[in-house]
């Protein structure tokens, strides 16, 4: 089977959920990946949506975080204040899975405004949503976005959500309880924070991608980890499950 670069991204994002028990799911790419994980690597994964659903088991990929099926198939439905206070803030959720518009070398995220240059008004993005507290309070965080110099930038125009702040020790100084971002999965490969410097480093590329391509598509001088690996090609089962999801088809 052949595949697209977006499929490589989503399949690898789903694989990153292996071993997770509970996941706070952002809309868009994270939702596709988390639902794929439920159909492949992690069938018992508890999906938690900010609309107040705990344990959603949608048969089709939802368009929004509040599609009726998310509530109809959930173990429990709670109010929005409760999902954020009793479940997220209380530290009950293993993994936060987020998309992003801009990410910097310390995996900080901007989803608020972009600078469009002198004489032009700021470009408006949707805003924070649940992200600042999801990234603060989940046990760890996964980010998924397409790899480009526009998305992976030297300097954020606005810090909406803190990843590793300005480097090692930053999260502890800010009092952020979770471990923060552990991987950024893109359509070219995977970046992980260096254990010493907390700076995102290219640790994997997808089949058919060179590290040079990933470096060229990154807005800071991206370090390549020694022992760079190539991700396993998507299996037929993964691609079939993903395509059924994308078509809105129920689980096979």
């Amino acid at each position, binding site marked *: 089977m052949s595949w697209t670069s977006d499929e490589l991204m989503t399949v690898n994002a789903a694989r990153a959920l292996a071993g997770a028990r509970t996941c706070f799911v952002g809309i868009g790419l994270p939702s596709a990946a988390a639902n794929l994980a439920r159909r492949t690597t992690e069938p018992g994964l508890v999906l938690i949506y900010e*609309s107040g659903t705990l344990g959603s088991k949608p048969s089709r990929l939802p368009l*929004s*975080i*509040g599609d009726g099926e998310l509530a109809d198939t959930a173990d429990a439905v709670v109010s929005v204040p409760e999902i954020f206070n009793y479940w997220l*803030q209380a530290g009950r959720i293993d993994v936060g899975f987020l998309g992003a518009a801009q990410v910097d070398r310390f995996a900080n995220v901007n989803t*608020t405004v972009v600078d469009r240059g002198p004489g032009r008004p700021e470009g408006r993005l949707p805003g924070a949503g*649940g992200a600042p507290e999801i990234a603060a309070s989940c046990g760890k965080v996964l980010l998924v976005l397409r790899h480009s110099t526009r998305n992976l930038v030297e300097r954020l125009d606005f*810090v909406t959500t803190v990843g590793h702040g300005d480097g090692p020790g930053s999260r502890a100084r800010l009092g952020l309880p979770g471990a923060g971002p552990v991987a950024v999965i893109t359509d070219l490969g995977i970046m992980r924070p260096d254990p010493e410097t907390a700076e995102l480093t290219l640790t994997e590329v997808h089949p058919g991608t060179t590290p040079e391509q990933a470096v060229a598509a990154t807005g800071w001088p991206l370090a390549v980890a020694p022992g760079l690996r190539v991700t396993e090609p998507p299996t037929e089962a993964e691609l079939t499950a993903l395509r059924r999801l994308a078509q809105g088809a129920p689980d096979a």
Partner: protein
Amino acid sequence: MAEILTLRDAVAGLVHSGDTVAMEGFTHLIPFAAAHEMIRQRVSDLTLVRMTPDVIYDQLIGMGAARKLVFSWGGNPGVGSLHRFRDAVENGWPRPLELDEHSHAGMANRYVAGASRLPFAVLRGYRGSDLPSRSATISTVVCPFTGEELAAVAAINPDVTVIHAQRADRDGNVQLWGLVGVQKEAALAASRVLVTVEEIVDDLAPAPGAVVLPSWTVDAVAVVPNGAHPSYAAGYTVRDNGFYQAWDAVSRDRDAFLRWMDENVLEAAR
């Protein structure tokens, strides 16, 4: 006690130009019909409060009804931008829009404080974010017991909260279920409450996980079947995802938007 009124009379009596208005419903039970009636009655200069402005506020903003927006996530869920919101913020069309911007956790807690009639709420939030630099309603407070510094967010107490619910009884007791969002808090935080419902029934049979707002917490109930469309009411309607996808093209262009509003909202009452 809640009065059972027509939507027209309920909006005319409870929603006034210059008000701070919260129209809640987290993807589910969004009170679109009430917003359309507000547009027809030319209510203006509103401070609109909503966690997710969604298409409902894209329409109110595009029609020039709002001077300020208090929110936490302004996109078309799963589709992309809210183009009327963006046009107002970036270009001031049809009028400039002041923003007070939060995270979801912050907004949810602002409503909790409002419903509790406390001046502010406390959460572990916004740490390291630039959001507090642009908002006068985010600050910090030190815990008197542990010394921990926590985020403090100002209460929201709307002049009027408008919600949609599945049903009410003849006394005006209101029942809603499914994704109940932040509606209970938004209603109890407000000075006045308007609820549109799918139907009025003789008896409110208990429903699993339902929220009940007693009649004496509500000012007016108006029956508007399908009044949440293109959002939905669990048990009655399903979310019209096709509408949300089609809204992208309608709302991208100022003239196409105004034509759509004229044909589907303003004409609808003539």
